[in-house]
């Protein structure tokens, strides 16, 4: 794979770019050589690396608005944004550092913060909304949501949040009620390792791409 990459660096880049442009953030093995224009977000255990496009300063969705192009629509945008905000509160514990990779949060925490935000006791209907939002956010790499374990982490896309955006996020964390302190991790020492998390969804594209390159 490396020889091929060295041989045809340009087409190698083009291939990766095409993959990222069509599929969004990609999870690959850490020995994949760097690709120009792509940011690498390493998983905390160092087992894999996410690749996603580097946004230049000032480029972003504000430019789309200026050009009069509608952004990509999402179902229930407010609900989804709220759940993402809640996940940021739960998973971004070191508020002085970057949001990636963050810690593992649980569905229990999310439900508690959600009820706190709504200012009323937890309701069963909340769960439908929360799970729906989590799935949507997982599909677009904003979150990594492990539905079986009921655990969530911030997705690789959050690595694009710069210092000014982190300031805004700190404000959100200040407004939202604090999540319950005890992070209930049902598994033992292997718990924090998020390997099994993407095994259902995220690994197939990664392995497929690895196959394609070798």
């Amino acid at each position: 794979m490396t020889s091929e990459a060295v041989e045809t660096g340009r087409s190698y880049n083009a291939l990766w770019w095409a993959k990222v442009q069509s599929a969004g953030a990609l999870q690959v093995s850490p020995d994949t050589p760097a690709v120009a224009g792509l940011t690498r977000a390493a998983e905390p255990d160092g087992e894999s690396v996410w690749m996603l496009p580097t946004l230049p300063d000032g480029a972003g969705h504000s430019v789309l608005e200026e050009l009069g192009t509608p952004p990509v629509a999402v179902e229930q945008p407010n609900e989804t944004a709220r759940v993402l905000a809640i996940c940021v509160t739960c998973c971004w514990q070191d508020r002085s550092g970057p949001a990636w990779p963050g810690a593992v949060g649980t569905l229990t925490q999310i439900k508690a913060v959600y009820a706190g935000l709504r200012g009323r006791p937890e309701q069963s209907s909340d769960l439908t909304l929360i799970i729906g939002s989590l799935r949507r956010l997982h599909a677009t790499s904003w979150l990594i949501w492990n539905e079986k374990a009921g655990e969530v982490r911030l997705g690789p896309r959050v690595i694009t949040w710069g210092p000014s955006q982190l300031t805004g996020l700190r404000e959100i964390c200040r407004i939202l009620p604090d999540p319950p302190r005890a992070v209930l991790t049902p598994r033992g020492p292997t718990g924090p390792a998020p390997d099994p998390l993407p095994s259902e969804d995220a690994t197939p594209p990664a392995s497929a791409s690895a196959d394609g390159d070798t």
Partner: protein
Amino acid sequence: MDATLLDAEAEAAVLRVYRQVFAVLAREAGAMIVDPELLDVDQAILDAFAEAGSDGLTVEQATLACRGYRHDVIVRRFDVLRQYGAITKLVDRPNELRHRAAFAPYVMLMFLKRMSAQGGQAELHQLLTLEAHSVSDPRAVAEQGQASIERLTKVFRLLGNELSILVSTSTTAQLRENAQLAWGNERLIEQAEKVHRIVLDRWPALHRACTQLRMSLAAYADAVQLAAGRLVERAGTTRALGLLPIETWLTFTRGSGTEVLAGVLDGLLFDAAAPEFSPEGMLEAVESGRRTGTARMAPPRPSSETEAPEPTAATDREDLRAEAERILAGRDSVGIVDIVDDSGDWITARRVLAELTAAHLHDELDYELVWSDGMRIDPSAGTPWATHGSFRRVKR
């Protein structure tokens, strides 16, 4: 393709200036210039006259000399030129066929082409230099200074007016096309101020005309600033990213083939289509979530009236009852004069009476305010004039 586009643009620019200058004349002559070609026709005709020497030309000779153009076009332009005096008969007699051309229109034509190429700024600079020169001439008199100042005032008024009209009425694209009006404005204003200073120093009596000039200069400077502000504001982030204006992209995408389009996108990396969550948007969602969470939202209604008429009516009633009980202080009836005197000054008494009237009129409260004849007049009291009457409970 580029070359032809530029040519067309240059022609259009010439035409624009030409049209502005000659519109009046041409309309009277029945021949507006509607085609850049006509300018070339004019030039060709005048060229032919230059070649012809002192004998002049007849219409037929002129059309022959300009074979490159259609006969009727030449004849029509010839007529137009004759009507506004660019071409005159060699000798002014009825059957004279030969004509001569005046040199002034040709100079004008050259001048116009030059001006349209450079936006007239160079000419304005030269004009200003000339004016400065003429007003500093030791032989110059106050009339010349005044005329000079008035000319400049008009020039800058026209400039400023055109620009501010463009700013307030036209699209950004038009404004950008006419940006030449704003070019080099600082140097222009500086030069005009120099002329102004010379004139004011030499002939202080002209201060009135000078004030006019200062005002027109200031108006021009303002218009330039407004125009620049609008252009910058519109350019926005696209300018910060070094991108071309949107209109240019739209034209380009409409007019280009697949290969060209792909060539532009080569080397650009796009993010996969995904919804965007900015911290601001999340904050907004969280805020709105909090609001809907604490209480059921009332249906949308003007917010000033949503403060529930029902509860205020209830608290109003209780407020009135408390006030009435305070006045009655356990008694069944109180005289108005006592109430007024207890209140001290009229301002307070007026408020108390208003509340008692409200209690009287309230259908759920059993109080009444009864007025009787007669009046108490006591200059030493807080309220010297007070009508008799009483405020009392109603027995039901």
